[in-house]
C-alpha cells in the first residue's frame, strides 16, 4: 500500500515538474503571470504558504525526531548485550529458557576462528564473544535477602562494547584480573541492599541437574534503563561462570558489527559458513530477537502516519481554498481570456501551475525552516520522559541528515497536496461559460 502511494506521489511530482519546465521553456511569461497572480493577494497567499510551511516543518521535525528515537532505541537494544547477530546450538531457541543449558556450543573457539578468518565476516566484526546464560538465586546472608537472577558469563573486555549502554552507577565493569568479582543490575542491588565491595552468594543448577554455589564480591552496579533487565541481571567473567556451572561450553556466540546496516549481509554469509562447515548451529539477527523494539517502532509509525494524514488534509484544504478564491475573484478575467481564444485546457493549466508553484515554494520553505529549527533543537536536545518499560528518560534530537525519505516526504507533501488541491479550482475555471462569466459580479 505504502509502495503504491510512493510511486503515485512520484508520478505526480514528475508531472508537476514537467508542467513547470515545459511552461518555462515554451511560455516563460506564464510563469511570471503565475507569480503576479499568486501574490496579487499577498496576505492570502502568505497565509497559505505559512500553513503549508508549518505542516511541512511539523512533518520534517517529527520525522527527524522519530528517526532519532528509532535509531537510539535500536542501538540501545543492540548494545544491551544483544549484539547484531547471535549464534546458537540447533534447538536452543525452541527449547525454552528452562533447558538452555542442554543446548550449548562446545566448540566456541573453533567457530570464532572460522568466522574471524572469513574475508566477508571478519573485517566487519567489531567484537565477538561467547556468552553463557544461566539462572539461579542470589543472596546476601548478612542482610537476610535473596532474589532470583538471570546471569550471563561474558568475556570482560568484549562486555565493554557489547554492553556499552549498561551504565555503571557504582564501581566498575567486569575485570580480567579480579575474575571472582561480579556486577549486578540496579534492581538486584536494591533488593539485596548490596553495593560495591559487598559479598553475595549464588546458587545455580548445573547442566547435570546438580546444585552449585559460589560467593562473589560485587565490583559494580549497572543500570541499562530497562527495568525488567536491571531487576534480574547479573554479569560475571565467562571463565567464572563456566567454573560455577562446571562446563566449558557457551550458550551462544554474540557478534557486534562495525555497522548495523551490515547485519543482513553478514548473517547470510554466516548461514553459508554453517552449511559449508556442517556445524549444528543456527544464526539470528537482532531484528528477529528484538520484539520490544518492533512494538515501539510500529506504535510510532502508526502515530507518524496519523500526523502526516492530518497535515496533508489541512494543506489540501488551505491550497484548495486559496485557489478557489482566486478563481472566483478572477472570473471575469478568465472570461476575457477565453473570449480572446485561449482553450479550456490552457486556462486549467494556468491554475494547475499556480498550485504547483505554491507547492514548490512551500517545499523549499519547509525544508529550509525544518533544517533551521532542527539545528536549534539539536544544540541541547529535548529532555524526554522514559519510554514504556524504561526507567530513564533521554535527550531527544532531530536526526534530519541521515534519511533521504524524510527529505523526500517533506518535499512531496506540499507539492503533491498542492497539485491535488488545484485540480478542482482549475477544472472550475476552465469550465466557465464565457457569457455567464462576463455577467459575474
Amino acid at each position, binding site marked *: 500500500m505504502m509502495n503504491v502511494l510512493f510511486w503515485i506521489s512520484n508520478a505526480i511530482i514528475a508531472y508537476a515538474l514537467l508542467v513547470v519546465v515545459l511552461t518555462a521553456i515554451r511560455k516563460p511569461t506564464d510563469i511570471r503571470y503565475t507569480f503576479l497572480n499568486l501574490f496579487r493577494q499577498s496576505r492570502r497567499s502568505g497565509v497559505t504558504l505559512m500553513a503549508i510551511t508549518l505542516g511541512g516543518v511539523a512533518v520534517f521535525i517529527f520525522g527527524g525526531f522519530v528517526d532519532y528515537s528509532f535509531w537510539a532505541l535500536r*542501538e540501545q537494544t543492540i*548494545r544491551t548485550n544483544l549484539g547484531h547477530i547471535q549464534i546458537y546450538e540447533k534447538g536452543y531457541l525452541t527449547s525454552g529458557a528452562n533447558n538452555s543449558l542442554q543446548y550449548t556450543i562446545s566448540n566456541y573457539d573453533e567457530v570464532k576462528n572460522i568466522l574471524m578468518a572469513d574475508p566477508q565476516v571478519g573485517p566487519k566484526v567489531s567484537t565477538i564473544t561467547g556468552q553463557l546464560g544461566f539462572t539461579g538465586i542470589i543472596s546476601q546472608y548478612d542482610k537476610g535477602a535473596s532474589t532470583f537472577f538471570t546471569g550471563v558469563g561474558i568475556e*570482560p*573486555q568484549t562486555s*565493554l*562494547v557489547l554492553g*556499552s*549502554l549498561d*551504565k*555503571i*552507577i*557504582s*564501581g*566498575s*565493569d567486569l*575485570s*580480567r*584480573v*579480579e575474575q571472582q568479582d561480579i556486577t549486578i543490575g540496579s534492581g538486584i542491588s536494591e533488593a539485596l541492599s548490596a*553495593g*560495591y*565491595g559487598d559479598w553475595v552468594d549464588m546458587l545455580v543448577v548445573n547442566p547435570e541437574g546438580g546444585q552449585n554455589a559460589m560467593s562473589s564480591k560485587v565490583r*559494580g*552496579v549497572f543500570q541499562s534503563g530497562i527495568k525488567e533487565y536491571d531487576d534480574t541481571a547479573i554479569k560475571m567473567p565467562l571463565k567464572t561462570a563456566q567454573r560455577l556451572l562446571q562446563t566449558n561450553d557457551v550458550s551462544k556466540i554474540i557478534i557486534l558489527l562495525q555497522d548495523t546496516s551490515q547485519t543482513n549481509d553478514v548473517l547470510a554469509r554466516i548461514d553459508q559458513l554453517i552449511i559449508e562447515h556442517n556445524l549444528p548451529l543456527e544464526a539470528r539477527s537482532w531484528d528477529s530477537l528484538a520484539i520490544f523494539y518492533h512494538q515501539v517502532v510500529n506504535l510510532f509509525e502508526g502515530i507518524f502516519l496519523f500526523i502526516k494524514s492530518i497535515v496533508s488534509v489541512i494543506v489540501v484544504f488551505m491550497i484548495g481554498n486559496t485557489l478557489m478564491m482566486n478563481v472566483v475573484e478572477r472570473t471575469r478575467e478568465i472570461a476575457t481570456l477565453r473570449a480572446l481564444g485561449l482553450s479550456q485546457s490552457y486556462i486549467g493549466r494556468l491554475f494547475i501551475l499556480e498550485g504547483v508553484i505554491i507547492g514548490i515554494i512551500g517545499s523549499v520553505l519547509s525544508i529550509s525552516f525544518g533544517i533551521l529549527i532542527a539545528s536549534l533543537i*539539536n544544540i541541547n*536536545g529535548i529532555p524526554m520522559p522514559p519510554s514504556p518499560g524504561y526507567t530513564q528518560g533521554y535527550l531527544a*534530537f532531530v536526526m534530519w541528515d541521515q534519511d533521504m525519505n524524510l527529505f523526500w516526504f517533506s518535499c512531496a507533501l506540499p507539492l503533491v497536496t498542492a497539485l491535488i488541491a488545484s485540480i478542482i479550482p482549475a477544472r472550475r475555471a476552465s469550465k466557465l461559460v464565457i457569457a455567464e462569466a462576463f455577467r459575474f459580479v
Partner: protein
Amino acid sequence: MTFSMCKGIAISALLLVTSVTQATTLEQMQQQAQSNPVLQAILTIKTQAPINDLGNATAFLEGIFDEKPDYQVAKIFYGYGQLFMATNYLSKKNYLKAAESSKLGFFYMDEAAETDENNWRMRYLRARMDAFVPASNGRCVIALKDTAYLQTNAEVPASLKPMILLMSARANTTCQHPDVAEKEWASLAQSGEEGKRLSTLRNHPAPEWSESELTSVILPATEVTS
C-alpha cells in the same frame, strides 16, 4: 575584610609560585620526553591535547602495553586518554562512542591498579581521575578505597598527602557523605600551605599536576616501566 584580602593575595602568590615551579618541572619533563616516547605520550594525554594528538598518543600506549602487558603506567594513561576522548565524543553528542570510550578508559585504569594492588603510584593515578569525574560515573566508591589505602601507606611521600586528602574529600562529597567530606575539607585547610591552596578548589575541576606529583608519581612510574 583586610584579613580576607590578605588571604586572597597570599593564595594568589602561592598559586603563582606553585605554577612557576611546576612549569620548570614540566619543562624538564618535556626535555626528557624528547628521548622517551612513553613519557611524551603521557604528557600529551596529561595536557588533554587536541583530539587527533590524543588519539595518536592513546594508540601508541595501546601498542606499548600490547607488547609488554606489565607496562601498567601505559594502561593508566591509555585509560586517561580514552576518558578525555569520551568527553570529546560527548561534546559532539556521539553518545555511543562516548560510552564505549569511557568504559574502555575505566577498564584499563582498573586493570593497571588491580594487577599490582600494592603499587601505590597506580592507585594514586587511578584516584587522581576517579575523584574528579562526575557522580554519574559511580567511581567515587573506588576513589574512596584508593585514597584510604594511600592515606595509610607509609611509602607515599608527605608532599602528596594534601592532594590525597583533597581527592578523598571530593570523593566523599560525590558519594553523598557530607559529614565526612566537611571534616576532610576542614582538615585540608589546616594542613600547611599546600593544603590551604587545595582547600580553595572545592568546586573546581581537577587541579593541575603539582611538582610533587610530577616528580614522585609520573616520572618514577615511567622510569620503572621504561
